[in-house]
């Protein structure tokens, strides 16, 4: 009987458990989790502050998950060392857990650059936005009238702005990039979203960054002095890779794996935000810190750990978020020629990127409608001359995907 150990407790871990249990209902699984909570949906921390979900509903799996899957859940325990020779993991309480197959799914952590004078901001007024504990702290601190500075106009910074909107006073978001959501939007779409958010009352300082903190004043590179009561540092996340580095695994920015999510170190697999993924939409290996990716990598790792044969491929970056009422759906990479589609009927704006006969990516603003069909074209690299692309960009449909796609509907898929 195999002994499985998983470090982590997020989507990648749950995927690994469910992957293992597809093939092996016997081998014991031990889950080591720094966070002491039942597995929760990390992206829902903003909805939690907003009051759109609660601790019970934001659980990523039902209460009986660990029990049903015969998992020993070591809540609030941190793995401090992996010994690949002894095939064991040492925990912060000194105990040692041994494994036959290990899945490293440690996720990422908030990255805090060394801002000058950050220590002059009292600790109780400094926040990050990554964990349930972060959310609880912020939720307890916000109150009407508070001036909030958010450093970082990325996904996490803006989701944070959204959830405290209406519960605090002025919200100002500063970013080094010349536009908001710079990793998922280009100029035009970013400016549409920015105008929408400004219309709701958010303030942006772009192309700028905090040079120095002076207590409750942030002095920008441009000289702007921004007063705040509390500051949320949301400049980015870094994959947690230290243990794998020490264990001798190949680590670039994230842990490197093959298509089986195998790290090359005997018995050790890795999945989720801590890894690098081959992105088919651009042909490069990069970090895709996204929930669907984390789950599917974990599931793939789990199946292989249990002796199955699963390849993780067809990964594409993909984001579906809503910011103060405006939906943003993006997928793939923004390479090649641009085709724009403005639909006044449903007030959506879409940009398609076509390169080398392939749809590489899209950006869609407004209520999403069947855009999974577009994502599927990117993911499966379906040449656009094999489909009725003209019709598709007007409105996504199965019929424009052609006979072979339609035939799938007649089979079990």
């Amino acid at each position, binding site marked *: 009987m195999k002994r499985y150990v998983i470090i982590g407790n997020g989507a990648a871990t749950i*995927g690994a458990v469910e992957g293992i*249990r*597809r*093939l092996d*209902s016997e081998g014991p699984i031990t889950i080591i989790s720094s966070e002491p909570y039942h597995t929760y*949906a990390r*992206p*829902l921390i903003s*909805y939690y502050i907003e009051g*759109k*979900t609660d601790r019970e*509903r*934001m*659980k*990523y*799996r039902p209460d009986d998950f660990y029990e049903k899957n015969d998992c020993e859940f070591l809540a609030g325990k941190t793995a401090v060392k992996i010994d690949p020779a002894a095939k064991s993991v040492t925990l912060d309480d000194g105990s040692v857990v041994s494994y036959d197959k290990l899945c490293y799914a440690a996720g990422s952590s908030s990255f805090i650059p060394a801002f000058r004078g950050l220590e002059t901001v009292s600790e109780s007024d400094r926040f990050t936005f990554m964990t349930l504990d972060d959310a609880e702290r912020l939720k307890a601190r916000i109150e009407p009238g508070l001036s909030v500075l958010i450093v970082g106009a990325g996904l996490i910074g803006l989701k944070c702005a959204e959830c405290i909107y209406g519960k605090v006073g002025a919200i100002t978001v500063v970013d080094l990039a010349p536009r908001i959501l710079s990793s998922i939007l280009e100029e035009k779409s970013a400016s549409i979203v920015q105008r929408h958010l400004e219309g709701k009352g958010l303030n942006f300082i772009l192309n700028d960054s905090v040079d120095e903190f002076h207590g409750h004043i942030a002095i920008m590179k441009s000289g702007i002095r921004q007063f705040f009561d509390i500051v949320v540092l949301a400049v980015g996340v870094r994959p947690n890779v230290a243990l794998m580095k020490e264990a001798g695994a190949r680590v670039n920015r994230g842990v490197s794996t093959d298509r089986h999510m195998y790290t090359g170190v005997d018995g050790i697999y890795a999945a989720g935000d801590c890894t690098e993924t081959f992105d088919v939409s651009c042909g490069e290996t990069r970090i895709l810190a996204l*929930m*669907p990716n984390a*789950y*599917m990598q974990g*599931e793939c790792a789990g199946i292989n750990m249990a002796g*199955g044969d699963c390849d993780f491929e067809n990964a594409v970056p*993909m*984001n*579906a*978020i*809503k910011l103060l009422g405006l*939906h943003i*759906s993006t*997928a793939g990479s923004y390479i090649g020629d641009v085709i724009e589609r403005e639909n006044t009927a449903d007030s959506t704006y879409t940009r398609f990127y076509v390169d080398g006969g392939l749809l590489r990516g899209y950006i869609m603003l407004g*209520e*999403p*409608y*069947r*855009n*999974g*069909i577009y*994502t*599927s074209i990117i993911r499966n690299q379906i040449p656009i001359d094999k489909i009725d692309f003209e019709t598709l960009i007007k409105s*996504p*449909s*199965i*019929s424009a995907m052609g006979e072979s796609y*339609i035939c799938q*509907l*007649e*089979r*079990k*898929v």
Partner: protein
Amino acid sequence: MLVNNAMKRIYVNKKWCLGCRLCEYNCTYANSGAMNIITALKDKPLRSRIKVEEYDGDTLPLSCRHCEEPICVKSCIAGALSKVGGVIKINHNKCVGCCTCISVCPYGAIMHGEDGVMRKCELCIDNAFGAPACVAGCPNGAIVYEERD
């Protein structure tokens, strides 16, 4: 692998579809909770979970395939989608309306609901119909509910 293979699904016999869209009306009614079809449909937009597409002069009703490897379930950021006894369901209480499932469904079978949470075909298992209303109401037997390999 431990998967449930014996599973009825909705299939379409393309050639028999008349394009009458009764399935869209019946679906909307069945999932509206309304007492009769008039109150369910009168002056309201169709909120159907089955969609009739035009195709090459024919018509093609489409709904959730309840995939063997459901990418929507794997992608849901809230853990709100799950596959229970072969049926992919949305827990409306958990869904936060992010639309990730819409972004991944290759069949365009998940739609935005009026209450902000997603809606999709759940085979009418939990509504008053108990079995797919689109199938029951199809006048030409074009939509069937059966097991196939």
